[in-house]
């Protein structure tokens, strides 16, 4: 078990180093130098050389990579010349908003997808199952911004019940002071995440229903509700850990689109604006950060799975 965890952590570090290297290479493959993006298109060669010298951009690439990676290991994601702020500060400022959006949506999605999946498994190939499968199929096959648009068209434009825009105050207290504005972004992210989970939950619950312990529970005369809540639900929760871990990159991507659609003050929107404005340090810092979240999500899922399910073998 310990060796398994050590090996997985080792792999995660290798993957992270690889991601950093690729991001670094991309940074230097892109046309237009950082200097030109910062001091403007009419900068002279001399000014560019001075800028590169000042920020160490004239050193050999391997050296630059070493210092880039070294800074990352110390938790320094870079410095945005355009905004005159460290990328860490930008990210930390928006992080609470993102944790609110993604966290609430994730919890809601699980609260919907798990019971629905179990219901579908119990009522397999009946009306309720077909209806739920159909809905998740359509949600799954829809570009996520289209879903957000439909919700805006219905609740904001037609019914005028909710604002079409997320809270516009950038701090977490500001965001929380406008709960009505949070409804549509969270609803959109919840629904697409639900669609991502529910197909998996259904087949996992069907697999669990066919297990021997369910038959044993039936044989000893337990009521259906007891079987479902005490045996099926608990065992269906184990793969959920994996599911959340591996779905993290997808959810973060959906999050980016939702933030862009509703103008939600989060890291995704900051990233989007940075990419449009050529603010490269923010772009690469956030890319590395999302990759880190992905790798940690996978690592966490694998380890939690091994801890939660004693039948899992790790050799």
């Amino acid at each position: 078990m310990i060796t398994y965890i050590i090996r997985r952590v080792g792999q995660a570090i290798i993957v992270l180093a690889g991601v950093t290297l690729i991001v670094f290479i991309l940074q230097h493959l892109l046309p237009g130098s950082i200097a030109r993006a910062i001091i403007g298109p009419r900068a002279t060669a001399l000014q560019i050389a001075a800028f590169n010298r000042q920020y160490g951009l004239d050193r050999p690439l391997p050296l630059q990579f070493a210092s880039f990676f070294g800074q990352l290991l110390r938790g320094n994601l870079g410095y945005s010349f355009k905004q005159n702020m460290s990328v860490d500060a930008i990210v930390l400022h928006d992080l609470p908003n993102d944790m609110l959006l993604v966290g609430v949506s994730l919890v809601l999605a699980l609260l919907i997808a798990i019971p629905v999946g179990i219901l579908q498994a119990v009522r397999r190939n009946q009306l309720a199952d077909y209806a739920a499968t159909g809905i998740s199929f359509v949600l799954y096959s829809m570009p996520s911004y289209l879903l957000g648009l439909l919700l805006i068209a219905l609740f904001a434009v037609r019914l005028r019940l909710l604002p079409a825009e997320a809270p516009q105050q950038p701090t977490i207290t500001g965001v929380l002071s406008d709960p009505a504005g949070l409804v549509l972004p969270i609803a959109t992210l919840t629904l697409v995440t639900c669609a991502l989970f529910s197909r998996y939950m259904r087949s996992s619950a069907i697999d669990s229903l066919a297990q021997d312990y369910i038959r044993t529970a039936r044989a000893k005369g337990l009521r259906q509700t007891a079987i479902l809540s005490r045996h099926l639900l608990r065992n269906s929760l184990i793969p959920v850990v994996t599911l959340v871990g591996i779905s993290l990159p997808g959810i973060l991507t959906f999050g980016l689109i939702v933030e862009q659609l509703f103008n939600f003050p989060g890291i995704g929107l900051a990233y989007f604006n940075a990419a449009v404005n050529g603010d490269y340090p923010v772009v690469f810092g956030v890319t590395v950060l999302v990759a880190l979240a992905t790798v940690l999500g996978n690592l966490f899922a694998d380890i939690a799975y091994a801890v939660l399910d004693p039948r899992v073998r790790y050799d």
Partner: protein
Amino acid sequence: MTDASEATAALSPGARPGGGEAARHDAAWRMILRAFVANKLALTGLIMVVAVALFCFAGPLFWHTNQVSTNLLEVNKPPSAAHPLGTDDLGYDVLGRLMAGGQSSLAVGFAVALVATMLGVLYGVISGFAGGVTDAALMRFVDIVLAIPVVYLFIDLASEFKPTLGLLIVVLALLSWLGPARLVRGETLSLRVREYVQAVRTMGGRSGRIIVRHLVPNTAGTIVVNATFQVADAILTLAVLSYLGFSLPPPTATWGGMLENGVNFLYDGYWWEIYPAGLMIVLTVVAFNFIGDGLRDSLDVRLQRR
């Protein structure tokens, strides 16, 4: 089924390793055909895909519209006899534009699925067959590329390049081959220790022959099912990228681009510029997912991902 016939072929006198190639290809196609007929879901999906393809490629033969030059006298017109689905903000006929947009969307979807599947199969089979250190190194590379947030990368590219059809296909394919690579590698790991592979080896069949004639054909089910999902995913990703600004330049139409443009008129009530394009995307992606799900059940393929 294939295993058994391989084994008999290997035992019969005078059989060359991997003989009867034509017959096996025929059998694979018949297997897929039978899967379609047996599975209503897959058949429904197939009919939907054919209908969409006919609409996009044969439709313009009957419904002539100008999708190249703008017509500023006919802007944002509601549906009428002359324009059954109205016109957009540049005066393009929306019905005709749906057909044109569908052509590029379907072309990208199929091309990406084809390229990504070929790349992924090659990579996966080599990784699984080689095993050991090579396998570990190749798979870590897949992990690395998988960890890079794709859509994020595209926004960045969008600010630098205006893509062409070819570039778009290449970039999407370069990011989609990881799934099939992992799947095929997993299958190869279990296939390469089977008896019939050992039989080929004892008869002197080289690695290349084992890979091309035995390993790849035996993962055909997984490959076909995954390729179907790849088409759906590529069409979806293309739509999302259009929304984020990484799309084919005008006057080329894509469904995602139409949707992105129509969003501007949400408050004006120009529904015909938004919902038809959205509906086409959803219909097409649902159709390919139907086919994929149906084939997976019929061919009895276990895919972890869906």
